[in-house]
């Protein structure tokens, strides 16, 4: 691991420990506070992947993966918030050389929502130019959105809270209904797909961070919780399953946090980590018994988030088809 990556990892870890850990449940209930957003900006985590001539730190891909991983362990919402701004918004603004918007982003004047229900094969967007329903990030004043004409727009407008609906995951980011006032075309649906493919390693980092966060809690709990006068860790079904999950996690992390991880490997990791994080977080909840089912224990959120995040950024058909084509070196998984 290079020095920059090591430094970034410890900075992110320290930040998460200091500013997120104790308020992780509050973030779930009330959203990411403006004080936290401010600190994320001050520390240069948001916009870090932008090139220095655009005002960013030109963060290398490995450091970005480590940063997202460390945040996801404590608060998947915060990790996703940075991910959307660094991997999607910054990239869109950078290709447009939109310096003013970048400055606004880095100064915290703009906050972006994300909206692409129609990205997955067959899924539809029920929005119109008048209202975009259930945009991710309740405090956004701008949105990057995929519209029913198959085009991606940068949209300015106003948001309104969504009533009578609580999102399954990423509750710290929240959702809003967004009322567009102005929109600029950015490109076709494919550019968004391309950005998501290029972000495979970062997506895998969030999934693995979620898994590790939930497993760490479970390791602690299964050491102290006793049934039939024995700690849970002494039971084979618990201990062996934890060992299996930790092994899978370790191997994937090893691969993900290597300087040499190339596009195909990162794609493989995205595929594997998406299903792994669901499996790991589900067992984490299960081994907490009834307590796992309660928000206060901070375990169920990992399960919700891994499933919700999958639905938002992982496309089971398209991503697998893309990987299959890479494996065969030829168009595959199509009839």
């Amino acid at each position, binding site marked *: 691991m290079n020095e920059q990556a090591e430094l970034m990892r410890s900075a992110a870890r320290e930040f998460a420990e200091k500013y997120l850990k104790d308020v992780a449940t509050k973030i779930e209930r009330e959203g990411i506070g403006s004080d936290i957003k401010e600190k994320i900006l001050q520390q240069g985590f948001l916009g870090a992947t932008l090139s220095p001539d655009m005002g960013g730190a030109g963060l290398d891909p490995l450091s970005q993966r480590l940063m997202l991983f460390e945040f996801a362990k404590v608060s998947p919402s915060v990790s996703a918030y940075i991910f959307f701004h660094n991997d999607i918004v910054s990239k869109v603004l950078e290709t447009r050389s939109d310096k003013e918007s970048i400055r606004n982003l880095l100064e915290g004047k703009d906050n972006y929502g994300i909206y*692409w*229900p129609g*990205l*997955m*094969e*067959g*899924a*539809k967007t029920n929005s119109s130019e008048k209202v975009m329903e*259930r945009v991710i990030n309740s405090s956004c004043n701008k949105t990057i959105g995929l519209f029913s004409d198959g085009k991606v727009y940068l949209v300015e407008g106003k948001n309104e809270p969504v009533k*009578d*609906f*609580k*999102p*399954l*995951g990423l509750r710290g980011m929240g959702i809003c209904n967004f009322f567009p006032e102005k929109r600029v075309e950015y490109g076709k649906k494919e550019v968004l797909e391309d950005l998501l493919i290029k972000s495979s390693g970062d997506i895998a980092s969030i999934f693995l961070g979620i898994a590790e966060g939930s497993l760490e809690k479970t390791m602690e709990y299964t050491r102290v919780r*006793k*049934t*039939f*006068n024995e700690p849970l860790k002494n*039971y084979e*079904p*618990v201990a062996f399953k934890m060992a299996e999950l930790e092994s899978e996690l370790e191997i994937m992390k090893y691969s993900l946090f290597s300087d040499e991880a190339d596009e195909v490997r990162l794609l493989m990791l995205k595929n594997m980590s998406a299903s792994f994080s*669901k499996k790991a977080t*589900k067992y984490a*909840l*299960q081994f907490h*018994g*009834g307590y*796992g*089912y*309660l*928000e*206060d224990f901070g375990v*169920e959120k990992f*399960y*919700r988030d891994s*499933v*919700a995040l*999958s*639905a*938002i950024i992982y*496309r*089971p*058909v398209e991503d*697998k088809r893309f990987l299959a084509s890479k494996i065969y070196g030829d168009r595959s998984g199509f009839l």
Partner: protein
Amino acid sequence: MDFDLSEELKQYGKKVREFSLKEFSNKVASIYDIQEQYPDELRIKALKEGIIDFSNPWKTMIGIEEMCRVDPGLGISVTVPFFGAEVLMLHGSDHLKEKYLGKVAAGEKIMGLGVTEPGGGSDVAGLKTVARKEGNKYVVNGSKMFITNGTIADFFVMLVRTAHPDDPAKRHRGLSVLVVERNFKGFDSNKLTGKLGVRATNTAELILNNVEVPAENLVGDEGKGFYYIMEFFNISRIFVAAQSIGIAQGVLDRTTDFLKNLEKNGDYVGEERKFKLAEMATRVEASRLLMYKAASFLFNYNPNPTLTSMAKGYASETASFAAETAMEITGQTGLNSEIERFFRDSKIMEIWEGTSEVEKIVISRMILKGDKNE
């Protein structure tokens, strides 16, 4: 062999489904879910319209499945006011049955079952709540955790320790069941909020501080409580299987609609998603057959705990498998629909009334003991 239900049961299932479709709309269900509020008016309505029928256990099972298929949180809420009734039915004195059960059936009272404690749910015999006999009453001290109907029930069928056997290996002896009323002095309850799912159901912690319970509220014999509760779980697990199958069938219905819609609009479906649908449907069918088999033993007074645990264990795992798969197939559409609520509701199935691990302990123990399951 006949896999078909009787005409009477089919008609009953149809009636329950119609009621559920009418009363448990997505809008209604999501309000109770968000507000974490118990739907008391739906409970009363279901009773009045004859939707709840506990006179025939087959009807109970089929009714639960049909309701949970439309909405698990509301379906469970409407059927759970009777939770624990079988313990009283099987072992309660005529006086207790008349005093307590009759009112529940009439919709005037709600009951609950208090077994789990903060220190443990799987390890039932490890409970710490103590009842000390003093003259013609018991004085109860301790606490109970995760009790369904905890802040709304009028009384609880509660497992407590009345004796301390010298040999720790025999700690399942010395437990007894008492009927504890909410309005007994020293009884308190705190609602637990922030559940992942089944949020329309009411869950609470119960605190018992020198609660005086009349000795006549002892259910059956002193010291036999553990066996009564295990016997109860061997009945109630069939109904958890029914809840689970309702959930699994519910997400299967919705996923099928989603894919049919894609086909209708000429959108791509693909074999990957079709195969997943096939797997969901197969597991739902297998779970239901297992439940019917276990039920046919149980409801014919020949309970087979191995089969019952298999049915509960497999159906509950099927519920969360089906809900997760449905989320995968439907993606963001699922996130913005009832499917996400079904997904949240599904996970409790593998926890309550015996976790998946506990079911496997029961099944393997019985098989190794030589229960041939015939």
